[in-house]
């Protein structure tokens, strides 16, 4: 892979997109369990109480933020704006603002998960 900012952005959008698709399948599959009765649904939810899935939730937050912010960047570029600043848009909007939003969401999620376990 060529090591240029646009390629990083392109790859990030694809990887987070695939991650979100995987989440969507899991989500629909779990919700579908409702049709099999409350017990089946509770059993399905119990599967997600594993600490690993808490980390998964935090990773999901990162994927949503990065995918959404890079999506805004791509929309701006497709509308013909900021072509000369596409790399700066990626590092400042997608990565910079994304990191701030991620920390604002991930820290409470993490603390809440720890407190709940205790």
């Amino acid at each position, binding site marked *: 892979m060529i090591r*240029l900012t646009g*390629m990083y952005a*392109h790859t990030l959008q694809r990887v987070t997109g695939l991650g979100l698709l995987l989440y969507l399948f899991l989500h629909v599959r779990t919700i579908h369990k409702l049709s099999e009765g409350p017990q089946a649904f509770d059993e399905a939810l119990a599967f997600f109480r594993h600490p690993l899935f808490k980390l998964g939730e935090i990773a999901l937050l990162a994927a949503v933020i990065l995918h959404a912010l890079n999506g805004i960047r791509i929309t701006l570029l497709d*509308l*013909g704006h900021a*072509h000369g600043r596409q790399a700066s848009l990626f590092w400042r909007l997608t990565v910079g603002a994304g990191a701030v939003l991620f920390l604002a969401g991930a820290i409470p999620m993490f603390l809440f998960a720890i407190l709940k376990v205790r």
Partner: protein
Amino acid sequence: MSSYGVRVARNQGGIGRGYQTFSVELEDRMTVLDALFAVQRDHDPSFTFRCACRVGMCGTCAVSINGIPRLACRTRASSLGAPEIVVAPLPNLPVLKDVAVSMEPFFEQWKRVTPGFRPKHPESKELAIVPASSQYMRMTGGKRDCITCGACFGACGVKATSGEYLGPAAINRALLRLADPRDEAVAPRMKALDSERAGVWRCHTQFNCTAVCPKGISLTDSIVWLKRAMLRRAPFEKLP
């Protein structure tokens, strides 16, 4: 003088033979092209690469330097900031020998957009006056300097996966011809550009082409401009 390890790709008859490293002494202002000449002169006369003008005008010496397509004659070795210079053939093009590639696939796509000027009034003897202040000149400023080096073609991630894709340089060329108020061949160019498998819609706005263009042409801007013009369903209005 600084010492560099020049790691060059070796290839013969379309078969890759790995990389070979040669030690080369270069002055601060010397370029990667000078390094390639030093390899050929001092180490292996059979080492093959392309070059012609040596001043960034012809585009012949485009190669992949440390993973990024660039003109060897315009890339100073000191600007790379590394003691090793890795030189490989341009990606997405068939290798003839060592780092020399065949530009045939590039020009095959180039031909598909009817790159030549097709005058509206071939019989006219009058000079067409296109003022520098006209919309055409302002819009195409900075897009007319393509030297067909193929760096964009080599850097394009879409081209790497789709042999049919026109590539950034051909699309930019089509835009210049379509925007030219003296030109009439709109239909064949639009047909090529609107093709689902080869046209502008394949571009994923990666900006690799723009990032590597040695002439600083915003090729992605040309592609996005065409996409928007085509979506407006007034595929191309000649600019005054």
